[in-house]
């Protein structure tokens, strides 16, 4: 019996042991995980690697002070980048091992001002005629690079880890960042690699324009290996017609230069065309025209070095062979008009300058403005003309996808504007001629255009307006022509751009696609008449008029310049939707979260971008102007050498 009991005890013990072993109760503990680099104090962010010497284990960690377990904490899958003080608690488990003891590692990260060098693409982004392999590098030793090709911005935990060159077979936008231990994350480097089978358009240097000396023009095509042909007689060059460009072209007279670039196996480029005017600068009068109480002497000068000046005082137009050669100041002893011209061998004659000098103080129409200063000397109801902009013409350029962000080519509606306001002898408003020049509509949407005065200092009841081009029936006007139901006088210039500009049948929109047929712009003149003798010129404040478009004949869907208020008829429920971040309560309107606009205004003529050409890539100092809040490059929109990417400007 004793032997039997011993036998039973031994078998039970063995079974118990087997059970315990199989349940893991006797499995070896996994080795406590370690970290690399070791815990401690570091300057700048660090990348932490975790490992356990026990093979096949799973590692979990926490950073919130809680102990991780087999079911809680983050499973370690790869190095972890830390940018601030962090304490890791780590365990290992699994395989043939039971859970390790918890490792606790404290990292103290001191700040650093050093940033990882931004990634650099090779080749640089741009246009290519064939597939490219893009390599990315950072000059910071040991930097890790991540990139995306889907438009998202890579981070230290998202995007593809860069290991070798990226094969680009179609147009691709790449964004990349770099980061390294001890350094901040680099800025994002973005680049678009455009793979196109069309040769890029030739670029002229200097650009076309007015010059007062002979010019030597260089032509290049950004497409490597492309040949160029050009003409100077107005004919259109092709890959067989025109002079083959080999050396810079000397221009000794005014001409139109046209060029095309071509390359075997690729589509010919669009044609680049520019007008070079080699002309003397017109003479300037000092003092300038005006009225004077006593005789004066007038000096004539031209900024063209070596130019000769001839002038007349008898009303006839001077030429390079007629009129008096200027050698000494012209005496003005009576009311007279001086006409002058400058000329020089090798240059076109200048335009004729003209200045009226009046002596005396007669006022025939008795309106308070003496005749020499009165632009309507025989009309007692009119005296002076003010033009805004002073340059003659400004430009408005709109995006029409509001409240969604557009593509920033700013050509969905392009309208030039000019206001000519006439006042009487007491500076009271008489009338305003508002001239609009519809140049382009790059949209598929049927957009209208109008404007509102800056204030209601002049009531709509004091205004009569005519000349609008309204062909649809979604606008309601008052009896005097301003828009009804507005609390500030509002003028609708046209209600559908497509009723004014006929679609040429190809290209996106009208007058925005390079190479598509050109449609002549349309001029619309609104004539505003005010209650006579009542409102001062300054009340009009036309310099701050509030232009807007109405999208796709939806009267409420207005798009204004940034921070310009909507009219009474705008649909305010659209504010704050999609990309718009308008806050009417604080006067914030028509801006994205990043303060980007849906419209721009320039007070001089502005050449708008072609279809899909982003304004920032078209005007090379636009970004500096914007980011400096307008202090840098306030003339960013001008046609000045080095200011524009000519290939992006719409031309016809």
């Amino acid at each position: 019996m004793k032997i039997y009991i011993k036998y039973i005890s031994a078998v039970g013990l063995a079974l118990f042991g087997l059970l315990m072993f199989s349940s893991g109760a006797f499995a070896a503990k996994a080795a406590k995980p370690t970290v690399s680099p070791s815990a401690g104090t570091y300057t700048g962010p660090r990348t932490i690697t975790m490992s356990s010497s026990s093979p096949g284990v799973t590692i979990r960690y926490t950073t919130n002070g809680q102990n991780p377990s087999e079911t809680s904490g983050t499973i370690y899958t790869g190095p972890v980048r830390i940018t601030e003080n962090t304490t890791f608690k780590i365990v290992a488990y699994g395989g043939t091992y039971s859970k390790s003891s918890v490792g606790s590692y404290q990292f103290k990260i001191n700040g650093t001002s050093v940033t990882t060098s931004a990634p650099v693409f090779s080749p640089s982004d741009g246009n290519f005629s064939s597939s490219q392999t893009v390599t990315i590098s950072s000059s910071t030793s040991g930097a890790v690079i991540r990139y995306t090709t889907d438009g998202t911005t890579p981070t230290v935990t998202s995007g593809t880890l860069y290991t070798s060159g990226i094969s680009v077979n179609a147009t691709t936008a790449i964004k990349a960042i770099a980061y390294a231990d001890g350094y901040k994350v680099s800025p994002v480097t973005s680049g678009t690699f455009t793979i196109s089978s069309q040769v890029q358009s030739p670029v002229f240097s200097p650009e076309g324009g007015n010059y007062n000396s002979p010019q030597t023009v260089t032509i290049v095509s950004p497409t490597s290996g492309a040949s160029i042909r050009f003409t100077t007689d107005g004919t259109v060059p092709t890959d067989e017609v025109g002079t083959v460009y080999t050396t810079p072209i000397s221009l000794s007279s005014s001409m139109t230069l046209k060029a095309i670039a071509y390359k075997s196996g690729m589509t010919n480029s669009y044609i680049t065309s520019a007008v070079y005017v080699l002309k003397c600068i017109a003479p300037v009068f000092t003092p300038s025209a005006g009225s004077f109480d006593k005789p004066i002497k007038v000096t004539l000068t031209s900024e063209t070095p070596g130019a000769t000046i001839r002038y007349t005082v008898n009303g006839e137009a001077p030429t390079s062979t007629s009129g008096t050669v200027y050698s000494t100041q012209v005496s003005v002893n009576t009311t007279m008009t001086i006409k002058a011209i400058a000329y020089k061998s090798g240059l076109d004659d200048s335009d004729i300058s003209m200045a009226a000098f009046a002596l005396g103080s007669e006022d025939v129409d008795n309106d308070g403005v003496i005749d020499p200063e009165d632009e309507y000397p025989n009309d007692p109801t009119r005296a002076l003309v003010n033009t805004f902009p002073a340059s003659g013409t400004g430009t408005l350029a709109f995006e029409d996808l509001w409240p969604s962000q557009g593509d920033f080519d700013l050509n969905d509606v392009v309208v030039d504007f000019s206001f000519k306001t006439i006042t009487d002898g007491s500076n009271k408003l008489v009338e305003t001629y508002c001239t609009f020049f519809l140049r382009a509509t790059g949209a598929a949407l049927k957009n209208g255009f109008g404007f509102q005065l800056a204030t209601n200092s002049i009531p709509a009841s004091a205004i009569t307006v005519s000349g609008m081009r309204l062909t649809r029936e979604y606008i309601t006007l008052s009896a005097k022509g301003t828009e009804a139901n507005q609390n500030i006088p509002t003028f609708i210039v046209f209600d559908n751009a497509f009723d004014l500009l006929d679609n040429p049948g190809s290209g996106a929109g009208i007058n925005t696609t390079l190479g598509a047929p050109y449609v002549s712009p349309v001029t619309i003149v609104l004539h505003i008449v005010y209650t006579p003798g009542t409102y001062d010129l300054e009340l009009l404040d036309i310099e701050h008029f509030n232009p807007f478009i109405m999208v796709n004949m939806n009267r409420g869907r207005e798009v204004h310049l940034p921070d310009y208020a909507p009219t009474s008829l705008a649909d305010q429920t659209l504010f704050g939707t999609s990309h718009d971040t308008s806050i009417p309560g604080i006067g914030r309107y028509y801006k994205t979260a990043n303060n980007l606009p849906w419209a721009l205004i320039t007070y001089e003529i502005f050449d708008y971008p072609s279809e899909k050409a982003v304004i920032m890539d078209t005007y090379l100092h636009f970004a500096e102007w914007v980011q400096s809040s307008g202090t840098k490059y306030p003339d960013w929109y001008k046609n000045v050498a080095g200011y524009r990417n000519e290939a992006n400007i719409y031309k016809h």
Partner: protein
Amino acid sequence: MKKLSLLLVVMIALIAFSSCTKEPLPNPDPKTMDDLVIKDDFSWKSTMDYELTLQGTVSRVVMVTGTDGAVYKKGLMTANKAYVLKITVPAYVKTVNLKYNGQVVELSLTSAKMSYSFS
């Protein structure tokens, strides 16, 4: 005295707090429009506004012109009476000419409100 001390502490704290407010730095290499760093108060205008108060001794037309001859504003100025006018000029224009009764005066645009009296 206690209230004064408290006020001083609050003011110092406010100054310290406001001096720590950092302006967003421009992106030195923006690749897309969304990369631009744009201040909330940027007006997006390429012009500047000025108010001029002018005066002369005879009733004559006064003109404000650019050095290139562009006429920004003109109006009849009544003798010995202040004439207030507003001009909007391209932001890069820093000087205008005032033309009045045969006089041409160059005026530097150094302030939003300026005045000049003709002799």
